[in-house]
């Protein structure tokens, strides 16, 4: 462990204390945990505000005026100012209606980006990727698989994709008894899709547990290392 300077040592001790306060939640909710979380939220929120103000808003809105002055005043800059000020009026209920324009702009841009990205970045490429050839002679570029092994894998991928999509299909017809039921084929396909989803979630659960375990190991090692350095001198 490298020598710790005074400030680093003090900071490390604070970090260790906070780590212990948060880990105490394993025993149950307690004031130490709440205090640590509130401190964290305050610092995180303050930092986020500072970085947004200093690295985004100030350079875009104020620096052009301070640097170039009048020539910097363009229509884009003026509209930027107007939009930001209108959005600021959202803070108070009495003036909240004035902030609808910038919010509408945000929503319009965001919705369009989501739609365009989903269509061009996921729907089309993933649909094309699912339509992999079932030719046994083809070779998988990434894994080098070929033959039946590859065909089986392609089929599993295809079945998994289709059945998972079918599981999220909730269109049903009203039967003679009045209950809404799906067709038998759809129900069977959806059940298979549920199995694939359960399998996928199992893999995701294991991955999340592994990630959390790595973080736990890092935190415990930090505590051990700090105490060792303190005890060791």
């Amino acid at each position, binding site marked *: 462990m490298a020598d710790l300077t005074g400030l680093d040592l003090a900071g490390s001790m604070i970090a260790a204390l906070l780590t212990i306060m948060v880990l105490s939640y394993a025993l149950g909710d307690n004031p130490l945990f709440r205090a640590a979380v*509130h401190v964290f939220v305050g610092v995180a929120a*303050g930092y986020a505000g500072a970085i947004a103000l200093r690295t*985004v808003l100030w350079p875009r809105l104020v620096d052009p005026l301070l640097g170039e002055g009048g020539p910097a005043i363009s229509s884009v800059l003026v509209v930027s100012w107007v939009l930001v000020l209108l959005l600021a009026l959202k803070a108070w209920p009495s003036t909240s209606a004035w902030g609808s324009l910038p919010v509408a702009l945000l929503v*319009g841009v965001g919705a369009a980006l*989501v739609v365009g990205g989903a269509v061009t970045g996921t729907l089309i490429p993933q649909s094309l990727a699912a339509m992999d050839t079932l030719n046994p002679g083809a070779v998988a570029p990434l894994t080098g698989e070929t033959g039946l092994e590859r065909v089986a894998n392609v089929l599993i991928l295809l079945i*998994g994709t289709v059945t*998972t999509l079918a599981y999220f299909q909730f269109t049903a017809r009203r039967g003679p008894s009045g209950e809404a039921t799906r067709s038998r084929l759809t129900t069977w396909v959806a059940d298979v899709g549920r199995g694939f989803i359960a399998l996928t979630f199992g893999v995701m659960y294991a991955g*999340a547990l*592994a*990630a959390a375990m790595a973080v736990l190991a890092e935190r415990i090692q930090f505590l051990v290392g700090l105490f060792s350095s303190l005890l060791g001198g």
Partner: protein
Amino acid sequence: MRLRLSLVWVAVVIGVGLIVLLGFFVDQPVILGIRRILISWAVLLSAAALVLGLYNLLSVHWHKVSLQERGWPYSALLVLCFLVTLTLGVLFGPDYPVILMLFRYIQVPVEASLMALLAISLTVAGFRLVARRRDLLSLIFAIVAFVVLLGTGPWLVGGGGGAYELVRDLRNWFAQVWAAGGARGVLLGVALGATLTGLRVLLGSDRPYGD
């Protein structure tokens, strides 16, 4: 008057959305230029919205402290830390060493510790799942999770043996084939839902921006 204003907002959303959406499919300099400006305004407004959200956070906790509601000391602590960090960050910049120390010795350890608690919670959740639930889907879930855990983590003994290789291959097969199929289906479903939601907004059916 209110009805006319809401139509204006709808028109703004549709107009802006159409231009941005067109940029995905049309390589027209004029459209791309306008699109670039609109997206830059959106980035700027996102930063302003972040600051607005922080103001709301401050006002909520300030109100709590003012009225001395239940848990107000924690809110006071939050407000204090927020104001100190924000003031220092705005005055000296977010890359100021003191601010970086606050980030490094407060934000990072607390967040990491919260994530570390997740390991305990996930382990307990797994234990309870296999102990109580006895249906096919839970069985599939538990078995796959166990196999992937075995294949992901190191083995204390027999780490280089055939069993380890078998488990690792099985883990890779589950994760890269079976789970990939399900994941692709989930991704397609998510993309379809996002497309539908976005189109509803662009067509004015949904108006999350208010009237």
